[in-house]
C-alpha cells in the first residue's frame, strides 16, 4: 500500500509540474502585459521597460518559470500580486481556510442528506417516494447554482429578512452559501447512491444476509450501505475540487472572500500571478484528492487492499 501511494504521489507531482508549466507558459504567451496594466496610462513607455526589468519579465520563458517554481518550492513564494503589490501567498493564505471550511461543511451535509435518500430510493424502487425524489433531483440538476443562490438570497435575505445578504463575519452568513452548495451537489450524490445501492441489492450476498435472519435495517446498513459506500466515498472525494470550483460563483455572489472570489477578481483585473497560484493550488488539491480516494478505496475494499499490498497479511 505504501509503495503504491508513493508511486501515485510521484505521478501526481509530475502532473502538477506539467500543469504549472502549461498555465505559466500560456499566461506568458498571451498578448496582455501586467506591467502596462499595473502602471496605468500615466507612466511613460520607457519607464515600463524599467519596470519589466525590475519584475524580471524581460527574461526568457524557461528562466522565468524555473525562477517562479523554485520560489514556490524553496521559499513558499508565489510571486507578487501586480494589483495589490503584496506577495501572493499572503493574499491566498487567508482565503484557503474560508473556502475549505465552506466546501467541507457542504460535502458533509450533502453526504448526510443524500445517502439515506438514495438508499431509500433504491430500497423502495418505483414507489412514490422514489419517484418524487428522483424527479425533484432531475429538476434541480437543471438549476444553475448562480440562479439558485440569487433565489435563496431573494427569498431569505431580501423578502423575509431572516438572514444577511452578504458578508462573512457571522455564522448566519454561511447558511445561504452552504445551502446553495448542498442543493447543487445533492442530486448527483442521490443518483449515485441509488444506482450503487440498486446494484448491491441485486447481489447474492444480500439474499444470504436475509436468509441468515437479519432484519431489514441491519441488512440495509451493514451490507447494502457498507458495500455501496466504496464507490460513493471515492466519488465524493473526487468531487471535492469540483466543489471548490463550484464555490467560485457562490463566493462571488455572497461576497465571501475565499479562493474563488479572489480568483475571479484577479482574472477580471488580469492579476496573473494570483491566478496562476490559485490554479496551482486547486490542481494540487485535485491530485491529492485523487490519491486520497485511492487510499480510502483500499481501506474500504479488502479485495483491493490485498491486491495492492500484494498477498496475504
Amino acid at each position, binding site marked *: 500500500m505504501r509503495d503504491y501511494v508513493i508511486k501515485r504521489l510521484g505521478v501526481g507531482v509530475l502532473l502538477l509540474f506539467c500543469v504549472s508549466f502549461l498555465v505559466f507558459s500560456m499566461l506568458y504567451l498571451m498578448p496582455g502585459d501586467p506591467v502596462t496594466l499595473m502602471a496605468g496610462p500615466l507612466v511613460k513607455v520607457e519607464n515600463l521597460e524599467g519596470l519589466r526589468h525590475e519584475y524580471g519579465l524581460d527574461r526568457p520563458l524557461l528562466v522565468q518559470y524555473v525562477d517562479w517554481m523554485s520560489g514556490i518550492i524553496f521559499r513558499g513564494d508565489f510571486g507578487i500580486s501586480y494589483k495589490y503589490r503584496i506577495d501572493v501567498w499572503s493574499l491566498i493564505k487567508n482565503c484557503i481556510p474560508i473556502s475549505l471550511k465552506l466546501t467541507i461543511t457542504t460535502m458533509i451535509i450533502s453526504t448526510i442528506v443524500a445517502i439515506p435518500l438514495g438508499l431509500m430510493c433504491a430500497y423502495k424502487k418505483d414507489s412514490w417516494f422514489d419517484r418524487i425524489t428522483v424527479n425533484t433531483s432531475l429538476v434541480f440538476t437543471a438549476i444553475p447554482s448562480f440562479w439558485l443562490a440569487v433565489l435563496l438570497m431573494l427569498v431569505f435575505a431580501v423578502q423575509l429578512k431572516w438572514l444577511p445578504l452578504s458578508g462573512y463575519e457571522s455564522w448566519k452568513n454561511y447558511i445561504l452559501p452552504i445551502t446553495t452548495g448542498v442543493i447543487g451537489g445533492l442530486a448527483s450524490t442521490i443518483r449515485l447512491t441509488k444506482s450503487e445501492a440498486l446494484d448491491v441489492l*441485486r*447481489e*447474492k*450476498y444480500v*439474499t*444470504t*444476509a*436475509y*436468509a*441468515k*435472519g*437479519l*432484519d*431489514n435495517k441491519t441488512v440495509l446498513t*451493514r*451490507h447494502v450501505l*457498507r*458495500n455501496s459506500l*466504496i464507490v460513493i466515498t471515492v466519488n465524493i472525494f473526487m468531487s471535492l475540487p469540483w466543489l471548490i470550483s463550484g464555490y467560485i460563483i457562490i463566493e462571488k455572489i455572497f461576497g465571501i472572500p475565499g479562493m474563488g472570489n479572489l480568483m475571479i477578481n484577479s482574472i477580471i483585473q488580469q492579476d496573473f500571478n494570483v491566478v496562476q497560484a490559485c490554479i496551482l493550488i486547486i490542481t494540487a488539491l485535485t491530485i491529492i484528492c485523487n490519491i486520497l480516494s485511492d487510499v480510502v478505496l483500499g481501506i*474500504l*475494499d*479488502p*479485495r483491493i487492499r*490485498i491486491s495492492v499490498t500484494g498477498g*496475504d497479511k
Partner: protein
Amino acid sequence: MSEELLKLNKLYVDYKVKEGYLSAVKKVSFSINKGEIFAIVGESGCGKSTIAHSILRLLPEHNEIIKGNIFFNGEDLHEYTDKQLESIRGREIGMIFQNPLDSLNPVYTTGFQVAEGIMLDNVSKQEAWNRVINLYNDVKMPDAEKRAKSFPHELSGGMRQRVMIAMMLSRTPQLLIADEPTTALDVTIEAQILNIIKTLRDEYNTAVMLITHNFGLVAEVADKVAVMYAGEVVEQGTVFDIFDNPKHPYTKLLMKSLPRKAKSEGRLQTINGSVPRLTENKPGCRFENRCPYVMDICKIKDTERRIVTESHFFNCHLEKGGE
C-alpha cells in the same frame, strides 16, 4: 423419523412480467419429514429454485405472486408477516445457494458473517466466535482459526461453500434448503460437501431439501425425490421408486439420458424440443410438445394424478405412464 416438517400445499408462483404473468410454479404439493433428505430434480429454469426461494420469501425482484400454503411445523409461513418470517430464517430454516462466491459479502471476514447470524440469539461476541471455530471444524474447514479471519476472496470455492453451510447450520435449523450447492464446484469437492451435509443430517437430524439437476447426486444422498418439469412436479417417490421404476415419460427420458445408463444402449439419449414459455392458464400437460407418447387429450386437459404405491405417484394422462 416420519414426523412431517414442511408441507407445500398447491403452491403457485407467478411472476409479473411485461406481457402479463409467467407461471413459474404450478400446483406443487409435497412434504418433507424430519431428518429426511428430499431432492427436487429438474432442468434449469423448471422452477425448483423458485420454490426454494418462495418458502423463505427471498425472491429477489419482488414481482411474484404466491398462492397456496407452505406449512412449516403445522404453521402456514405464507400467512406470516415479514417480521415473523425473519425469525424463521436462519433459525428454523437455513438456505445455501448455488454460487458460494457471490453469496458471501466481500468486505467482511467469513467468520464475522457466520457470527453475525449466531449473535441474533443474544450470544456474546466471544461466544459467537468460539462457536464459529467449532462450526468450521464441523464442516472440516482446514485451519479454522485462520480461515475465520480471512475474506471470502481468499478462500477457494469449496471452502466458501463450507462457510455457507457453517453459517446456515450455526443456529441448528430444522430444515436446510440447499439450492444447487455443488454446481459451481469440482467433482471431488462436491463429494466432500455432500458428505458434510449427510453427516450433519445424521448428527442434528436436520431435514434437507436438496435442489439439483444432477441425478447422480440424488441417487447418492436423497431419501425422496420429486421430478419437476416446467413448474410442475411430474413424478414423486422414494429414490428407489424413481430410479428402479420410473413412470412419467419425462422421468424415463431423463433416466435414459444419464451417462451411466446410456452405456448399455450405446448412445446418449437427448430430449427433443425445448421447455415452453410458461404463460398462465394454458391448459393441458406442459410436456406435450416433447413427449414421445403425446395424445390429443394432452393438449387440452390438465394431467391426472396416478398413484403407483403409497409413496410413489406421477401426473400423466397415460394410466401406466410411458411404457
